[in-house]
């Protein structure tokens, strides 16, 4: 879709924008909105002819809308939706129900939204686990209550003596000390443990544990037995749908609806968006960021440059290394952004049938999985380590059109298969590496489809079209370095004041007037909007007095 609001001829280079934002990912658009609503003259430049980055919906097969990358919504902060009036611009989040792990022996373990139905379902597999589930959920909720207030706060710089950093450090310390010794110990263990060890403390049933593992390895180049995966689980659990913490939903019209609503709100606030405008280089002159140069050579000048690209693409691909401190560059190079995920988007002629599920089961309206033990998930990760895609892949598969009537014609369906593991490069010979080829991609796609067919005979016959995406496609299309879906892994060493680089966690780049607002920054990846919002807060704060009418920006809703 073309941008009708943008001027038909680009502004000449003698015009200076208040801010140019590189990338129309959802975070770039969030920052853009807050700045435009504060009266700044804001330009967003996006390399693709579509917007949204990894929050995008495209029609690749007539009549079907795909959520091409991200596919479920929970993390997006409701405070941001409200500040930017996104529902009025078309954003609607739909809760979904149920889900299931299919077992190799023909059985399944379901989840249900109803507490009692869910308890009895787990009890079918383990009466003990069914009763422990509530304690587990309670404990996770405690961790959520700790982390949620941190999402919309700029992390302090522990090395700084500025009053704001000191008071923010004190705030963190207070939060932590308020926990009490046992809880604090639990917290630290939780933030550093493997999900497998963590689950072993609660549960005995392997299928249940495999189910709980999903969110702990999503988007992460770690296996369930790797330390640090428990935190990744929390990252996926701390969102909510209308206050229902841990619940996920669909954006009506696909995840691109988030970006479309942001773009509509931005244009309504007078902002300008240019698609098909790839940035080749961020301009640094006289020691400050002065604008960007597009690939066709056009120079765009601005009082500040804000990058929505990941930290590696920003500093390693789009800047002159001589403009950057060497130590900083070194940190950026070692920032972990190993890709681990692939995705299939499938147009179906009819709903797949899973004989394991009873008639009328709501599970098809939720998330579906085919890995029924933690060990199988770990083995899938072994393939990644060996430089192969998983022969027995790990899927988070959904059929959003079961709920959303806008995504496929009545009776037909859109299926989204998120798959692990997929390495960014494939092993070549004993210790060489090579790029993915189209053949590799198709073979990976086949492994995924074959796995579904095993549990849903006849599935293949219903396929009308498939989009297969490996880290190669994710990098080429969205610009995610090595295809890492979070613009950098969400492990504890890369969180809070260490994200993306110690000393640079406050959205400021190492060059004056250069800022970062993407998922590479605190609090990280997912369609959350918090990095973009926090970056805008810092930019506006840096302008002091310079902004007339500051946009409404809510603090996080209190945790009672």
């Amino acid at each position: 879709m073309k941008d009708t609001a943008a001027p038909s001829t680009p502004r000449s280079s003698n015009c200076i924008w208040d801010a140019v934002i590189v990338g129309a990912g959802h975070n770039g658009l969030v920052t853009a909105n807050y700045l435009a609503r504060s009266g700044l003259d804001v330009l967003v430049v996006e390399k693709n002819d579509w917007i949204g980055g990894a929050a995008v919906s495209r029609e690749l097969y007539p009549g079907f809308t795909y959520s091409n990358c991200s596919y479920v919504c929970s993390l997006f902060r409701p405070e941001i939706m409200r500040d930017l009036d996104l529902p009025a611009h078309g954003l609607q989040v739909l809760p979904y129900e149920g889900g299931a792990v299919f077992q190799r022996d023909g059985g399944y373990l379901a989840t249900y939204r109803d507490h009692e139905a869910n308890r009895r379902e787990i009890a079918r597999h383990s009466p003990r686990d069914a009763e422990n589930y509530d304690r587990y959920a309670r404990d996770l909720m405690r961790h959520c209550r700790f982390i949620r207030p941190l999402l919309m706060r700029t992390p302090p710089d522990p090395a700084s003596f500025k009053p704001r950093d000191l008071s923010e450090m004190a705030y963190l310390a207070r939060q932590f000390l308020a926990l009490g010794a046992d809880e604090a110990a639990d917290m630290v263990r939780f933030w550093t443990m493997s999900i497998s060890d963590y689950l072993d403390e609660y549960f005995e049933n392997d299928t249940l544990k495999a189910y709980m593992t999903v969110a702990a390895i999503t988007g992460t180049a770690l296996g369930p037995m790797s330390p640090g995966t428990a935190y990744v689980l929390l990252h996926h659990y701390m969102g909510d749908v209308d206050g229902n913490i841990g619940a996920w939903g669909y954006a009506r019209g696909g995840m691109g609806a988030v970006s479309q609503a942001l773009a509509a709100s931005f244009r309504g606030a007078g902002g300008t968006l240019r698609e098909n405008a790839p940035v080749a280089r961020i301009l640094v002159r006289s020691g400050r960021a002065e604008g960007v140069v597009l690939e066709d050579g056009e120079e765009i000048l601005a009082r500040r440059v804000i990058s929505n690209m990941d930290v590696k693409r920003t500093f390693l691909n789009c800047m002159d290394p001589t403009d950057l401190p060497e130590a900083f560059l070194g940190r950026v190079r070692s920032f972990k952004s190993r890709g681990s995920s692939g995705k299939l988007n499938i147009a179906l002629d009819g709903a797949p049938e899973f004989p394991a599920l009873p008639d009328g089961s709501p599970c098809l309206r939720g998330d579906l999985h085919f890995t029924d033990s933690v060990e199988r998930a770990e083995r899938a990760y072994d393939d990644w380590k060996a430089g192969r895609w998983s022969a027995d892949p790990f899927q988070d598969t959904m059929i959003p059109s079961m709920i959303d009537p806008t995504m496929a014609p009545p009776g037909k369906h859109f299926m989204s298969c998120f798959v692990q593991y997929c390495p960014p490069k494939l092993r070549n010979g004993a210790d060489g590496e090579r790029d993915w080829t189209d053949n590799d991609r198709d073979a990976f796609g086949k492994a995924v489809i074959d796995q579904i067919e095993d549990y849903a005979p006849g599935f293949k016959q219903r396929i009308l079209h498939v989009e297969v995406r490996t880290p190669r496609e994710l990098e080429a299309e969205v610009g995610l370095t090595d295809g890492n879906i979070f613009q950098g892994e969400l492990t504890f060493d890369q969180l809070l004041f260490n994200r993306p680089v110690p000393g640079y966690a406050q959205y400021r780049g190492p060059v004056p007037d250069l800022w970062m607002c993407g998922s590479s920054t605190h609090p990280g990846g997912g369609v959350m909007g918090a990095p973009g919002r926090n970056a805008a807060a810092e930019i506006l704060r840096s302008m002091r007095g310079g902004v007339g009418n500051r946009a409404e920006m809510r603090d996080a809703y209190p945790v009672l």
Partner: protein
Amino acid sequence: MNDLRHHFRTPLMRSPFHPRVEAANVLNAWAPWAGVTTALNFGDVAMEHSSIRNSASLYDISPMIKYAIEGPGAAAYLDRLTLRRASALPVGAVQYTSWCNDAGHVLDDGTLFRLGEDRFRLCCQERHLPWLQDSAIGFDVSIRDETEAIAGLSLQGPTSFSVLSAAGGADLASLKPFRLAEMHLGPAGPVMVSRTGFTGDLGYEIWTTPDRALDLWDHLMAAGTPHRLRPVGTEALNIARIEAGFIIANMDFICAEQVLRPDRARQPDEIGLGWMVDLDKGAFNGRNAIRAAREGGMLHWALVGLDIEGNVPAEGAELYLDGKKAVGQVTAAVWSPTTKRNLALAQIRRPWHRDAGDRLRAEIYALRELQYHKLMLRARIARRPFFNPPRRRATPPGMF
């Protein structure tokens, strides 16, 4: 079995749709509505509400009180009874209206259907037979309670047009809001369809006789499945109606006939219904009192929509000016999944319905694990409807 002396055994009546409602009411969540057993939910309020805004929902409205108002003098009678000009309502149209006693205090609000030149139907929340009959003196009109003679289903949501089309509804595309038409819906037979509802969304109400009720339910559910139709209960509907900014008698205002404490009675202007009052149409019940109150500055209250900070619903909250002076009361409140706002309806003392600026606070007591968190959250007066999608009025309607 049908011994009418045995009401003590079954105080609540059953709706004509009861067998289907009962089968789907998996949590046995029941509540009485106008003496009928009705479903509060069908197991999942959030999913049900979502279907009202995302796909399509089916809600049993049979318990609504319905009066047949018929005769050559019906239109003139209704002009005299209600606030609006009923005689201007074309045959085949529906009017949202209200009526008052001589003090100008609201007795109820409801929808008035003009089924023929001399035939009307009035649907409302409370029972008013004596009032309606006594008001008919001097008019050539008969008034009869037909509540139990008519079964009704409300089909609401963005795919409701798709559902009803799939069910065989002909000429549906041209049916405008607040219009009605007779249709034949396959095995469900002849029905009356009105483009009305209580959700503020695209939707229809479908009226039939009790003997054909189950056929209608089954036929709609079958036709609606590919369009994600699901039954919804009163809890989901209540969220939707607050989003739409609609009021309910005896929840957002007290019906004048039932008011015990005289200061609780309200004029139309005091509950947001002032726009209905047609002072130019000639005499009607309450006219002089309404005019006198307007002219004499005797209106004390107003009904407003509120957008409240945070995400804790303000049910029952008291409203304070500058945190000190009590100026009103929340009558309905909900966290709105559609608008992502914390919404409420409230009665507020004049002139604060206009002049409160940023000075209003809602005092909320949130009970969490046996302790109250007391919150004083900023409340801003907001325009109703809070949610008003273009599809509500689009003719022809879209498929979703």
